[in-house]
């Protein structure tokens, strides 16, 4: 059987389940608050901070800090590169998910 397996199209950053979850949570919003992503993905703040830092370094996530009243807020959003990478990763997952088990 010739041709590459769709797993080669998976994004290296997004094969990490927590990073994939963070990007998925941000995929359908303009931006979201740090606490909302933490609660939605069900991880600790330190874990989220660490993974967001990695995604920010890769250029997939943008972090903005601001204030609402007296309270500091942190907002997360996907960059254009992040959205494109997420779309490619989902397409690869769909190709794998729909793949006939007789074709490894």
């Amino acid at each position, binding site marked *: 059987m010739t041709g590459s*397996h769709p*797993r080669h199209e*998976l994004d*290296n950053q997004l*094969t*990490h*389940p*927590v990073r*994939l*979850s963070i990007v*998925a*949570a*941000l*995929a*359908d*919003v*303009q*931006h*979201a*608050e740090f*606490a*909302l*992503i933490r609660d*939605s*993905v*069900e*991880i*600790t703040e330190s*874990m989220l901070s660490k993974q967001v830092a990695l995604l920010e370094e890769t250029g997939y996530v943008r972090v903005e800090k*601001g204030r*609402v009243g007296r309270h500091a807020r942190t907002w997360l959003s996907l960059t254009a590169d992040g959205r494109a990478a997420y779309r490619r990763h*989902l397409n690869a*997952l*769909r190709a*794998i*998910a*729909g*793949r006939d*088990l007789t074709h*490894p």
Partner: protein
Amino acid sequence: MPIARSHQPSGISARPGPGVPLANLASRCQHGNMEDRSSPLSPEQARSDLKRAAELSRRVRSRARLARVQTMALAVGFSASLLAFGLITPLAWRVFVCVVLMVLPLAVVQWRKRASAIEPYPPPPPGGWMAYPLATPVVYAVAATIGTVADMHGQPWFWVPASIVVAMPLVVLALWQWRHDR
């Protein structure tokens, strides 16, 4: 609503199957129990990832349906303000209404800043985004001026239709936002 939970697989190197709590995934990642990346992802695992991703997108997205609600709140606010301006005769009340009107957009901006998530911006409506919020105070000023110059204060037959007309630009914008809601 938590994602469906199931019995945690015993193999520490295997990628977890569907329904495994995300917290457990985070713990496994933290302790280095990640899958061997050279091992192929099975269709079942890919489906699990897709299902989890869709659930997370939906969960966060459900917290972000604010733009059209805020636009309608502004429309109702301007409309009610003009009604109060036209139907309440003491001058002090009219001044009060004008002050509230100035505070209203600021209150909506603060309300939006407090939202946990903001929905994606739809494509701009015909005329661009600013045409509708800018048209509203212009229509308001024209209606208020006509009603004052023609001494219409206390006349509902003028102020009720005028308040509907004042609300129209923002109602149209809210309908555009609702129509393009993904």
